[in-house]
């Protein structure tokens, strides 16, 4: 529901702004009151809402799974245990089919990514104004803040920081294992000796910079595409929810139409959030597998 004091453009912008904590231009520390202030804070600031929701959901995920793990027995499983085991088996199957190396961290990481990203994405299905509205009410009631200056983005995966952060961790891990398995020399060779190679040493030296440019772009593209895919999909979905929410301010007929639209989009979105979580997980497994692949000699 668009606040009558905001135009549609302001409403959208308001929804796309994170709650950012950092140092103001005058040297004091605090929450940014406007989007301009937030960007002026630069790198040394933090998106409180993204961190809060991602950690809350992550802890929720670990709590549920830890409980199931504690109660896990070989007897007939019931209820939650059954559901958790279904997920575990699904992840285990995915990892076993795509990852050929021997590494105990890959499957737990895939599980974490799948469930955590799914939960994070799931926040998208909560009507766009509920949680920001609650945050604005709490902020204005208990902290005396101007509700228009309280920003609250509840879907961490619509914040590129969150998706890049995860992709970066995956990327660093895959780099680490890549170097560990292939050695520094093997890793360097992977970057410089393909796709062009020659038995003539002089020609090979000429090929090295070309190979490096191609391979380096391919290397960097992995975490970039991994994070941007999730971010882009969730951002677009969130944007459509926001646009539908604007309809509620346009009278009865448009409001009811918007209600149906929101329902339809939310149902469709269930597919997207699951699919994106699955894709993120699968690509992570594939990247880890690539780190373990020793290329055949040319």
């Amino acid at each position, binding site marked *: 529901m668009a606040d009558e004091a905001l135009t549609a453009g302001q409403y959208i912008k308001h929804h796309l702004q994170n709650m950012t904590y950092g140092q103001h231009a005058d040297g004091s520390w605090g929450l940014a009151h406007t989007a301009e202030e937030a960007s002026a804070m630069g790198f040394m600031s933090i998106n409180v809402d993204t961190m809060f929701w991602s950690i809350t959901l992550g802890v929720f*995920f670990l709590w549920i799974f830890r409980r199931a*793990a504690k109660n*896990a027995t*070989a007897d007939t499983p019931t209820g939650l245990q059954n559901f958790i085991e279904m997920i575990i088996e699904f992840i285990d199957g995915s990892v076993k089919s795509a990852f050929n190396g021997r590494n105990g961290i890959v499957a737990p990481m895939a599980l974490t990514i799948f469930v955590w990203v799914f939960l994070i994405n799931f926040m998208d299905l909560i009507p766009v104004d509920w949680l920001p509205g609650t945050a604005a009410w709490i902020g204005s009631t208990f902290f005396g803040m101007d509700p228009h200056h309280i920003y609250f983005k509840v879907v961490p995966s619509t914040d590129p*920081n*969150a998706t890049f952060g995860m992709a970066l961790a995956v990327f660093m891990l895959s780099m680490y294992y890549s170097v560990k398995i292939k050695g520094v020399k093997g890793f360097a060779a992977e970057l410089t000796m393909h796709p062009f190679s020659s038995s003539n040493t002089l020609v090979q030296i000429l090929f090295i910079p070309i190979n490096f440019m191609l391979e380096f772009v391919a290397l960097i593209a992995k975490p970039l595409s991994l994070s941007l895919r999730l971010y882009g999909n969730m951002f677009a979905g969130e944007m459509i929810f926001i646009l539908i929410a604007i309809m509620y301010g346009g009278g009865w007929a448009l409001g009811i139409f918007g209600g149906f639209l929101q329902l339809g989009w939310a149902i469709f979105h269930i597919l997207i959030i699951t699919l994106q979580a699955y894709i993120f997980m699968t690509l992570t497994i594939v990247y880890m597998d690539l780190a373990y692949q020793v290329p055949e000699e040319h």
Partner: protein
Amino acid sequence: MNINLTLIGQSITFAIFVWFCYAYVWPPLVAALAERQKKIADGLAAAERGQHEQELAEKKATEYLKDAKGQASDIITQAQKRANEIVDEAKGDARTEAGRIKAGADAEIEQEINRAREHLRQEVVVLAISGAEKVLKREVDKDAHASSLNELAAQL
């Protein structure tokens, strides 16, 4: 969308979650699954073994039954044979006994005959003597001819 410290924060958070999952969530669940898998496999194997054993037992039971039947018929045959033998023996015994009794009777009859003959002879001697006495009373000396008459009587 500003890139800021959240990036680093998310990476660290993610790393911690993955570590927790790796240390405390994944192993017990996978272990439980593996254990259950093993349990089910064992159960199926045991069931199969049980079935196999039952088949064997049935086979054995059939064999025992067959053996028992054979033995029973053997025993019956033997018993019949023995019964026949006993009957035959009894028959033989009876025959022997009858022969013995008959022989005893024969001997007794013979004795009786002999005794009767002896008696008769005695009486004939007495009668002959008395007859001869009466006939020869007057002319024959009783004492002079008694020895020759006794001789005659012994020859009868």
